[in-house]
């Protein structure tokens, strides 16, 4: 059984005990522990259940590659599923729960899947559950979903905060092991701006565990000295707990920093997402040890050999009292030495190689450990904990030679360089047959913005697995024990019969076995991507860090081809999973998106506006009084505006100044109608189309001076139209002399609308706004009631109406003054819905309602606004295409329901018959439909086939379900057809 050793543990502080729980059971660990080391130290070997067969599982690794030991961490709003115990630092009060079982870890109903394992090979679900049709949705899929998934579902919103930061450097060194330290030192000394980041809390990587000498010093001393020098360099930034998640194009690296994970509830960010732009990335990301594939290699207590010694050296945790080591290489012998030094028992080392002559095996043998050469493990005994191993000849079929009792198995199948960052942007790999691994091909690196290599791999990440090779690559001398060649072992024993292969796990979490990969190959899933997808190999939360190389070796063997011919699956970011919270950063709640506020926004808020999002603005939809529905509020606002006077915050309207000798010519190209002829002081309504001919925006244009115009755009369109203007000026007509300025935010704009509007403005005084002084469709400027105002006499409601623009800083004051001064006139604000209804009553089109990106001005009866004189304007050519001139295009009309009801939004008018695809023919649709409190019934506008020629005809529109609503085709102007009210 695993236990805490009485001495040692280079990373723990025995003076600081930390309390935590596992499945409710109180446990203790030390500061410096990971959850995994603390759990092992507390004797907890079994930690969870596997994905498919719900087999008992324990800790395999000591780092990011851990596939099994995932737990639910925390509770309520701070619950997090699938937390990897091997990389989670222990903290006081941590609550952990094992996953994927019911009712509990020891007794799991799902374990029945394991009993039926023969019926559940890779991809069995593709061959079954097909009938009856409804059974998949209602029966099979729910069962599968319930049994799959790993961790529990969080139930509450995350209370923690996250942040992001950008960093720039010449060289980013990823990995704080000795290779990374050496690289940072070299680059730092060369004066480069260097970032060195390490995913764990500690520097030095594996070397402090494995030992050796660097540059004449003990490795640990060299690490210390080097760190000191680096810390003294102003051009070097050092950072632990920062994991490089992905290498993206042009040197962009995403990193995740753990800031507050061990201090839940503290007022600090939990995670910080770094976006590091590096001139060059040096990956010193090390290597990951491979498991060996033998039967029942997934029983809790079977671990990577390197992990076993990590636990002993780093955390003084013994994974077992009696550890059998299974290996195909010399490195694993280091585990034996560590265990022996800790006073633990190593009953035997099972080495698949026929002979072992290396220095490490010699040393181990000399200490009296049995080394069984040419042997393998036939199977592991035990279910929830290793009880022993059956030994067989590696070359054979698994006939047991002897059984050795043990409670831990340390396995090593060799090492694979961590090539993720190298590969994310297309760096290629070469097969290193000697060490049986893929390593970065320096001839084919990922390329950066300038087409040169942007990533360089060093140390074990480059395939230099020994300390000597790693430091040699950095130009430093180093010595460590010599290692004899390893022998690749992809299946143990080599000729394992199918029954053993059915229990030899490759991907622990997803329960993919050697037999599954072989089945995939047999069925023609020959591409490694096919095999991955068919078997789910490498698709677990460790993303194949342990399983991929073993899996593709088995696949290659099954296909009878060399491993490089099979290739690898694509490496995709992130290297280890990163929280969605970190990706979100600060952008949640109030900062989710910018909320654009008009200068009058605070007044709307104080007066309980019901909001409507319009782009990034939020405009009042209506201002309900207490007890009023929104509908009632809208009707009141309309009635009051038409009877008295209403105020609309129109500040969001786009306001773009266009000036220059060629401004008139330019606007004539932009608008369908003529703007160059507009007299100074006057306003004209204009339409803009895109080059495809479709209506894009509209608004009133005012001529400010001989060479300058003010173009109003829709609220949503201001930035787009300004960009559109600049695009044409910069990229097409760059010799035209025109300047533009987007002054949308410089002005607050208030529409004062209704029969008493003039009286209200007169009360403010300062500007004569009489019919004579300021006729319809003109503008004037001056001091209105002490405000710097420009007043446009324009109307979108059909009423007497003034739009007053004042500098934004004065907007709120003007609004408040209008409200105060107009009290006895019945002044009331109105919102966007009242605006919409009133304009519909007048038959005015609204961009986004009558238009949808497929409507041309001709469809809307706006031919009066299309200049016949101009030889060209944007969209003109497009409007000449056959489909645009088709007489059968639907045209705008008004619609009056016979029963006074309101046609639903989006309703279509069916026509006789069906089209070639059996769909009902149609002859029109509504574009705007409202209850008009002015007229007292439903009114609508719509596009109807030959509509203008069918005045008075009654056609049907779709209602709820099968219901049909009869409506008469009318003129779209429902209110004050002659325009008398707006022109008083």
């Amino acid at each position, binding site marked *: 059984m695993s236990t805490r050793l009485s001495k040692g543990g280079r990373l723990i502080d025995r003076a600081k005990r930390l309390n935590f729980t596992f499945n409710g059971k109180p446990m203790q660990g030390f500061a410096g522990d990971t959850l995994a080391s603390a759990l092992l130290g507390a004797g907890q070997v079994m930690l969870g259940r596997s994905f498919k067969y719900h087999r008992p599982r324990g800790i395999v690794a000591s780092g990011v590659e851990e596939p099994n030991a995932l737990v639910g961490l925390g509770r309520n709003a701070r619950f997090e599923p699938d937390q990897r115990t091997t990389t989670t630092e222990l903290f006081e009060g941590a609550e952990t729960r094992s996953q994927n079982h019911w009712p509990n870890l020891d007794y799991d109903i799902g374990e029945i899947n394991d009993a039926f394992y023969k019926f559940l090979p890779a991809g069995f679900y593709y061959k079954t559950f097909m009938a009856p049709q409804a059974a998949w949705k209602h029966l099979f899929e729910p069962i599968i979903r319930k049994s799959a998934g790993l961790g529990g579902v969080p139930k509450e919103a995350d209370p923690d*905060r996250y*942040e*992001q*930061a*950008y*960093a*720039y450097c010449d060289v980013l060194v990823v990995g704080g092991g000795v290779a990374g330290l050496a690289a940072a030192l070299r680059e730092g000394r060369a*004066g480069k*701006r260097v970032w060195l980041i390490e995913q764990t809390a500690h520097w030095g990587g594996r070397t402090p565990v494995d030992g050796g000498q660097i540059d004449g010093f003990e490795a640990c001393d060299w690490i210390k000295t080097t760190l000191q020098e680096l810390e003294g360099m*102003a*051009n070097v*930034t050092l950072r632990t707990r920062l994991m490089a998640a992905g290498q993206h194009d042009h040197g962009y690296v995403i990193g995740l920093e753990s*800031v507050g994970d061990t201090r839940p509830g*503290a*007022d*600090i*960010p939990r995670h*910080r997402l770094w*976006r590091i*732009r590096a001139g060059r990335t040096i990956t010193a990301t090390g290597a990951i040890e491979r498991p060996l594939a033998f039967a029942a290699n997934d029983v809790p207590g079977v671990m990577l050999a390197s992990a076993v010694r990590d636990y002993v050296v780093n955390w003084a945790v013994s994974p077992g009292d009696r550890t059998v080591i299974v290996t195909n290489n010399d490195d694993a012998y280091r585990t034996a030495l560590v265990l022996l030094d800790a006073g633990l028992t190593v009953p035997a080392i099972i080495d698949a190689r026929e002979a072992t002559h290396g220095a490490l095996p010699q040393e181990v043998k000399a200490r009296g450990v049995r080394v069984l050469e040419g042997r393998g493990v036939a199977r592991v005994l035990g279910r929830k904990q290793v009880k022993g191993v059956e030994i067989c000849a590696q070359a054979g079929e698994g006939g047991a030679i002897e059984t050795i009792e043990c409670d831990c198995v340390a396995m090593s199948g060799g090492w694979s360089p961590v090539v993720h960052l190298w590969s994310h942007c297309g760096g290629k790999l070469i097969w290193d047959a000697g060490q049986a691994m893929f390593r970065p091909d320096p001839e084919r690196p990922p390329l950066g913005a300038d087409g040169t290599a942007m990533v360089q791999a060093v140390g074990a990440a480059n395939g230099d697995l020994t300390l000597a090779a790693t430091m040699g690559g950095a130009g430093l001398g180093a010595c460590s024990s010599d290692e004899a060649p390893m022998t690749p072992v992809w299946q143990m024993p080599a000729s394992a019969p199918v029954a053993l292969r059915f229990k030899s796990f490759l991907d622990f979490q997803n329960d993919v076995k050697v037999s599954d990969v072989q089945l995939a190959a047999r069925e023609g899933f020959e591409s490694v991507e096919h095999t991955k997808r068919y078997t789910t190999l490498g698709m677990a939360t460790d993303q194949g860090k342990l399983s991929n190389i073993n899996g593709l070796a088995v696949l290659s063997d099954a296909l009878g081809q060399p491993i490089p011919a099979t290739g690898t699956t694509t490496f995709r970011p992130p290297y280890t999973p990163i929280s969605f919270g970190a990706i979100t950063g*600060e*952008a949640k709640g*109030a*900062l989710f*998106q*910018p*909320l*654009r*506020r*008009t*200068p009058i926004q605070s007044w709307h808020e104080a007066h309980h506006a019901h909001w409507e999002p319009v782009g990034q*603005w939020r405009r009042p939809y209506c201002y309900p009084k207490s007890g009023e529905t929104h509908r009632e509020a809208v009707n009141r606002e309309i009635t009051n505006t038409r009877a008295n006077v209403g105020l609309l915050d129109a500040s969001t309207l786009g306001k773009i*100044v266009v*000036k*220059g*000798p060629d401004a008139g010519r330019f606007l004539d190209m932009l608008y369908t109608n003529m703007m160059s002829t507009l007299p100074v002081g006057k306003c004209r309504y204009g339409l803009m189309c895109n080059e495809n001919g479709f209506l894009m925006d509209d608004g009133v244009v005012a001529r400010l001076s001989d060479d*300058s115009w003010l173009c109003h755009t829709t609220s949503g369109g201001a930035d787009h139209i300004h960009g559109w203007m600049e695009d044409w000026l910069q990229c097409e007509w760059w010799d035209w*002399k025109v*300047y*533009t*300025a987007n*002054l*949308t*935010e*410089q*002005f607050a704009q208030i529409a004062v609308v209704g029969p008493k509007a003039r009286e209200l403005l007169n009360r403010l005084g300062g500007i004569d706004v009489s019919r004579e002084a300021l006729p319809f469709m003109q503008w004037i400027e001056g001091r209105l009631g*002490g*405000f*710097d105002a420009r007043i446009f006499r324009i109307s979108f409601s059909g009423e007497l109406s003034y739009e007053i623009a004042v*500098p*934004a*800083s*004065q907007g*709120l*004051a003007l609004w408040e003054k209008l409200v105060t001064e107009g009290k006895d006139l019945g002044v009331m604000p109105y919102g966007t819905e009242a605006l919409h209804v009133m304009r519909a009553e007048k038959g005015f089109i609204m961009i986004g309602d009558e238009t949808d990106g497929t409507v041309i001005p001709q469809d809307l009866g706006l031919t009066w606004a299309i200049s016949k004189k101009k030889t060209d304007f944007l969209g003109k050519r497009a409007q000449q295409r056959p489909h645009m001139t088709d007489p059968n295009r639907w045209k705008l009309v008004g619609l009056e329901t016979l029963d006074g009801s309101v046609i639903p939004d989006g309703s279509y008018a069916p026509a006789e018959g069906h089209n070639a695809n059996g769909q009902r023919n149609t002859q029109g649709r509504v574009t705007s439909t409202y209850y008009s409190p002015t007229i007292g019934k439903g009114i609508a506008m719509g596009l109807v086939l030959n509509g203008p020629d069918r005045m008075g005809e009654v056609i049907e529109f779709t209602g709820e379900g099968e219901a049909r609503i009869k409506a008469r085709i009318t003129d779209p102007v429902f209110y004050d057809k002659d325009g008398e009210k707006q022109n008083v």
Partner: protein
Amino acid sequence: MSNAVSALQGATYQGFVTVTEAGLIGMISIRGDLTSKPLLKALKALGLSVPAPRQIVTSKDLTLAWMSPDELLLICDHSAAAQLVQTLSSALEKTHALVCNVSDARALFRLKGAKPDQVIMKLSPADIATLPTGEMRRTRLAQVAAAVWRSAPDEISLICFRSVATYVQGLLETSARPGSELFETAPSSS
């Protein structure tokens, strides 16, 4: 005008840097040929010359920033802006140019303290560490446009659009929360 107010009316927040909305400030956008004589003359009359690309220069009460190859931004007292627009417009009447008062279209923030760079690092993809004094960097601050420059030792100034001032204040406050410093000391750019 006495009833004029800035976007946030001088709101301030004390974090690991102090974030302050600077209140009403005058800003004038000048578009034109930056080499044209009338423009040079008009600026000279104000004691200014055209800054080099991206540079920002100050003369007495006026600060002038290069915004683009054909655009400058003149920063002044809010109360002086209207008159300056008049002056410049008149001076440039005979040339092709556009002078606009944009004072109320913007909001100005000051970040004061030892670590204002760290606040910007959290929000802008610009390499703030390499931004020299005397240069204005137009950039993105989270999801909105902004311009930043070093306006004094231990101070960064920042301009954004008025409508998003509340959003920007929120960004700056969140980023300046005590305990969330990125570094003990600012990292070097060398």
